[in-house]
């Protein structure tokens, strides 16, 4: 972890603020539609499946599967993250997919596979920002 933290930081908007505030408390909150029962990501104040405004936040388990990934060795000119790093799509057990990093594992294709079980790890990268990262479930 570089000190100070130099990778891009998110700046919440009113629609996404509850998500980021929950992460700071080390909780993963998603939204679910009361009309069609779909959980979805990223946050917005209506359901992208049926456009209903009847949506509510709920606390997700933080468990999921590695849907797909890349191991990044070369990045562009702007500071991103120390290489190599694993850029991952996580399929949460509640349904939605989100982008994250996989940590706690060798950044090597022989150590990684699609559908491996993962769980959330809260990374307090600054005083204001916590990111949802994931690590393999031990013994899985």
């Amino acid at each position, binding site marked *: 972890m570089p000190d100070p933290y130099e990778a*891009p930081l998110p*700046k919440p908007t009113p629609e996404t603020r509850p998500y980021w505030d929950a992460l700071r408390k080390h909780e993963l909150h998603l939204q679910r539609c009361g009309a069609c029962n779909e959980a979805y990501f990223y946050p917005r104040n209506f359901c992208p499946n049926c456009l209903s405004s009847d949506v509510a936040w709920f606390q997700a388990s933080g468990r999921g599967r590695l849907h797909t990934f890349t191991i990044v060795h070369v990045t562009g000119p702007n500071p991103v993250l120390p290489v190599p790093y694993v850029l991952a799509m996580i399929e949460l057990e509640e349904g939605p997919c989100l982008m*994250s990093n996989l940590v706690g594992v060798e950044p090597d294709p022989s150590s990684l596979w699609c559908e491996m079980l993962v769980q959330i790890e809260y990374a307090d990268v600054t005083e204001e920002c916590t990111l949802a990262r994931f690590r393999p479930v031990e013994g899985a």
Partner: protein
Amino acid sequence: MRASDLSREPELVLGKLQEGRGSVAIVGAAESDRVGKQPDKSALMLHAEGARNALADAGLSVSDVDAVMSTGRQTANEVPEYLGIRPRYLDNTQMGGCSFIAQLQHAMVVINAGVAEVVLITHGESGRSRVGMGARTVPSDSLGGQFEAPFGVGGPATRYTLAATRHMHEYGTTKDQLAEVAVATRKWATLNPRAAMRDPITIDDVKSSRMIAWPFNLLDCCLVTDGGGALVVTSAERARDMRQKPVYVLGTGEATHHNLISQMPRFHVWDAAVQAGQSAWEMSGATPADIDLAMLYDAFTIVPILALEALGFCESGEGGAFVEGQRTAPGGALPMNTNGGGLSYTHSGIMGCISSSRR
């Protein structure tokens, strides 16, 4: 549109557009004077060079142009001002590298609607030298800035890899099969004197080149170059009297299913290309068996494989096997990206369809 219209069958929704087959033609096509590394030219100048060369190719002047379609780091309205054109129709559709080929369909629509008679589509990008391009930044309060950038989404290699890894998982696609695309495309580039990379390569060369982002090595990735180009499109009727033999547009299609890569509905299937392809096949009345030459976007070796499946040249999951044995190389059953493609000819960042028309 009435609500009842939304439930109609897709082929009926296509309806009017389907009648566009052969209704317009490309009558001028050109690239910038040079492509490759051009630190002495701004992106906007590369648009202008393409435009001037394409208009000369068509035997037309700026006063003949009714509509300008463009996009990129510049917005479309910078282009007519730079060129001294006063169009009555402007299109700034920005959907990445396929913007310009999508604008070919938009040109068909506005010409057939009688809004414009001569449409100029321009592209220009200083992808390598970054002259007149501005800063590469993603706003931190955008959706990408919040939900992708913090995890290290950088260049395009960090996006297309996500599709490649899942394709390999679902279908057993191999690194050797990805490399087949790079090797075949390089063979075509050896025949193109303007191509940046003309030395033949092997599958082992691809796999032993520098790792960029698993599963892509350097030679799985397109070039980053400077270049521009333009098309002049007009009605089939007017095209008959033009200087060049018209290239009639028989079928077009466009679709968008996601903007952020993290919102791609299925990583191993290019669903938007399936939809756009269905439109183009229906309009043209053609099938993959009719095609003698395919120009399929090749930002990375996985992309033409996804496109071959999406467009029905092979079944889903068989794209890797399809490109084996140099099937898309000179002498192969399906010549593909015969200018050397983005992998070996040129790739300025968002690429046009100029070369395809020229051929």
